[in-house]
């Protein structure tokens, strides 16, 4: 038999049973559509994260921690617990552990300077963050304020939508993210330049009167905290800051160190800060290092580690991330396979029915010289055609549905001030794979029924009834 005849037979026979073909194919369409949607979503997330990392240069960053970490009170005068967590992480992830007897070096201004001089380092700055209330007009929000030196801020590290980073370390000026502005009720971030914003910190107040107040207050209102307000001027608006960005951009507000030094602040997230000696030379809980290219990450890390510090680079996490995405894909496939399984049972059913109906016709085929293989292939082409149609229309359906979902997510996210993005991705291999997979599943579903067809005894099939 010719291939064109197999195709012609399959199409002709399916066309004769339009409704049944339509219903069976619909099952496949829905199954493939769901699977495609799932996988496209997985791919979309993967692409967005990786693109984001690339765009934000995330693979160009190395985090440095003091070898002892903030576990030793007194070493950490910087109010940042985040660094502590990172240090834990860094410890677990390894890096040479310095001799326990040898005192680990302090991560202070001198160390920062030395790290900044390492070949391949573009910038190094301490990680200092504290929680604060940001107030604009009647709106007040809680956020983490990052202290960033002016020279680092002006080095092109952050992308500004408007304005510029503060020129020196002293003025009460800040850079704010457009999403925070949005949440503060500013519609057009361009207009925010020059606006006065109030930054309020909470400090511990162990004064005698305060303690008395605490003891005798009934509502628990009077915790030993004092609120201090500082006025800042918006000089720059940064786009796209958020948790996925590198350290300077993980906060929605950046202020210069000089201004920060004048503030009384308390980290609510760092217990150690409560016991930190006031004064003395500051050592940082963490330092962020930006290297010139991802290839520089390894040598720079080695060099910093040889100085006795711990490091952490996202670059190292790449493999971990890939595995994570793989697991996510597996999960999405598993869910998507439910629909495919149901659809393939539909195909089995349709093929069994069709073969029962055409029992006599199969007998005729054999009587006029069809081999078992001819008969089996005629029916396999039918289920394969169902698979092809199901794959094509399923892909279209999956694409259409994902477009709708994408639109809905974007509308919802726009209210949160998030920028527009594509949450689904359709790489060519996904499209082609969906169609081929649909055909493959349909052929597999056809194996049992078509083998039955091939084994029909013509004598029995042709006996007049």
């Amino acid at each position: 038999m010719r291939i064109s005849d197999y195709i012609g037979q399959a199409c002709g026979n399916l066309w004769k049973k339009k409704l049944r073909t339509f219903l069976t194919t619909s099952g496949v369409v829905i199954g493939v559509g769901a699977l495609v949607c799932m996988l496209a979503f997985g791919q979309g997330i993967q692409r967005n994260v990786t693109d984001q990392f690339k765009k934000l240069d995330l693979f160009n960053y190395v985090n440095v921690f003091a070898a002892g970490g903030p576990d030793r009170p007194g070493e950490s005068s910087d109010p940042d617990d985040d660094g502590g967590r990172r240090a834990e992480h860094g410890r677990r992830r390894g890096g040479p552990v310095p001799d326990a007897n040898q005192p680990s070096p302090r991560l202070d201004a001198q160390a920062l300077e030395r790290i900044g001089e390492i070949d391949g380092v573009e910038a190094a700055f301490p990680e200092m963050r504290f929680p604060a209330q940001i107030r604009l007009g009647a709106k007040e929000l809680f956020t983490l304020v990052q202290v960033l030196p002016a020279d680092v801020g002006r080095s092109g590290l952050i992308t500004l939508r408007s304005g510029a980073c503060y020129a020196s370390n002293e003025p009460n000026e800040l850079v704010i993210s457009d999403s925070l502005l949005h949440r503060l009720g500013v519609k057009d971030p361009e207009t925010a330049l020059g606006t006065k914003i109030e930054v309020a910190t909470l400090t511990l107040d162990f004064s005698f009167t305060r303690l008395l107040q605490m003891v005798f207050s009934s509502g628990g209102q009077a915790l030993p905290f004092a609120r201090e307000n500082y006025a800042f001027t918006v000089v720059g608006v940064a786009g796209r800051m958020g948790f996925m960005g590198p350290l300077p951009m993980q906060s929605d507000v950046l202020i210069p160190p000089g201004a920060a030094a004048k503030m009384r602040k308390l980290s609510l997230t760092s217990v150690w800060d409560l016991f930190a000696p006031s004064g003395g030379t500051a050592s940082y809980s963490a330092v962020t290092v930006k290297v010139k290219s991802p290839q520089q990450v390894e040598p720079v890390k080695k060099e910093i580690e040889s100085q006795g510090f711990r490091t952490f680079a996202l670059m190292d996490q790449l493999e971990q991330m890939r595995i994570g995405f793989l697991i996510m894909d597996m999960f999405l496939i598993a869910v998507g396979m439910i629909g495919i399984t149901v659809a393939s049972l539909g195909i089995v059913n349709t093929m069994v029915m069709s073969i029962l109906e055409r029992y006599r016709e199969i007998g005729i085929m054999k009587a006029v010289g069809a081999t078992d293989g001819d008969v089996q292939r005629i029916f396999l082409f039918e289920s394969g055609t169902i698979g092809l149609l199901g794959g094509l229309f399923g892909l279209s359906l999956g694409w259409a549905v994902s477009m709708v979902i994408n639109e809905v997510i974007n509308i919802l996210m726009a209210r949160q001030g998030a920028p527009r993005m594509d949450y689904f991705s359709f790489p060519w291999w996904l499209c082609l794979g969906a169609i081929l997979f649909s055909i493959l599943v349909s052929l597999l579903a056809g194996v049992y029924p078509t083998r039955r067809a091939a084994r029909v005894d013509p004598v029995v099939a042709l006996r007049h009834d």
Partner: protein
Amino acid sequence: MDVDEFIETKDLAKVYTFGTVEVAALRAVTLSVARGRLVGVTGASGSGKSTLVNLLGGLDRPSSGSIRVDGRLVSDLSKKELALYRRNTVGMIFQSFNLVNAYTAVENVAFPLLFAGVAKSERLRRAEELLVTVGLEARKDHRPTELSGGEQQRVAIARALVNRPQILLADEPTGNLDSKTSRQIVEILANLNKHQGLTVVMISHEKDLLREFADELIGLHDGAVVDREVLRQPL
């Protein structure tokens, strides 16, 4: 047995088993048919006529014994070879016509050529040619349900001829037809036998028609040949 014989069976037997019960449909049938003969097969219902014809046509395999056609041992062919034997060497006609109802007359006639790998245009050309031979060119686009019994049987004859077989096997081709139509059908078969040299084996209950057209008669009873009558000597 004569070496020149075209179809030869030797101790041909067919046993059907239902669990523990065995039905012997044919027992030790030894017969031979020379090329170009028209042989009539008669016998009571259940005597094994259809079984014999199905074995000769390669639709079924004997339980024991052998079938030789044109020197080839049909009973030893593989499944695939047997399919090719059915395709190229024999044409079969049945009492219930066995046409595909979804196909038109011309499509039914062309059907066997599909498996032979013949191109579509050639398939239709040959099918139409054969419909002319059986006088049905005007009905070529009609479906079996739109044709009379006699017309359907003529379509079936055309289909049996489309692969240019050497043997035509007819299992009660007139069983569903009135006597006038029966006569027409047998005449067509007899003509094919006389003018195209086809060897024809035809089962029929109509003794008169057989006596008129057949060269010899084989009588079956209870799965065995009980009677053999030569009506016309080979030339």
